């Protein structure tokens, strides 16, 4: 059984450090996503090699962000891990159910525009934030 007695009193410090790391890598991922989206048109005129490199960099930074997020989750204390996981489950469930329905809306002619993945991402983010807020309220 893993004992944290040796790390007494430093969970808050560890959590703060992990949050900073997560903030840094999330910002890096957003920047590389922007570079990948707008670079081909505005910077390197659709040069295939540079575009491919920007995609690989974006994926690499994205995977690093996932690992840092995992480290951030493991650095939390157990109540906050539970709140985070509950919010994640809610977000995943809502994303799956609403995402599949939303995807069909154009096919069944309920909407005239093509469903966009960005709308699903926004919905999942809002659901996750709501889940976190509800969790904190529940265990207040």
């Amino acid at each position, binding site marked *: 059984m893993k004992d944290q007695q040796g790390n007494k009193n430093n969970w808050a410090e560890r959590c703060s450090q992990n949050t900073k790391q997560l903030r840094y890598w999330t910002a890096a991922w957003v920047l590389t996503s922007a570079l990948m989206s707008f670079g081909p048109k505005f910077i390197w005129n659709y040069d295939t090699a540079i575009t491919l490199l920007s995609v690989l960099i974006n994926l690499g930074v994205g995977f690093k962000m996932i690992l840092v997020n995992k480290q951030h989750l493991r650095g939390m204390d*157990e109540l906050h891990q539970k709140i985070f996981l509950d919010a994640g489950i809610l977000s995943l469930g809502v994303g799956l159910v609403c995402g599949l329905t939303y995807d069909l809306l154009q096919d069944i002619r309920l909407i005239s525009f093509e469903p966009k993945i960005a709308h699903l991402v926004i919905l999942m983010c809002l659901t996750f934030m709501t889940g976190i807020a509800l969790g904190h309220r529940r265990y207040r």
Partner: protein
Amino acid sequence: MKNRLKVLRAERDWTQAQLAKELNVSRQTVNAIEKGKFDPSLPLAFRAARLFKLSIEDIFQDEEAA
């Protein structure tokens, strides 16, 4: 699950923040455990037992078994 965390803490005149620091968790976690809203993991229960120099059963009681 019932627990005597609040009583044991009060006996030592500790605040929730002090107990949280000793247990290496957040104050919110101590508060949730004391109110019975959250059951601690086995490692955290062991840490509490060591801190108060008691057995886990002296601090936490299973309501269904009682």
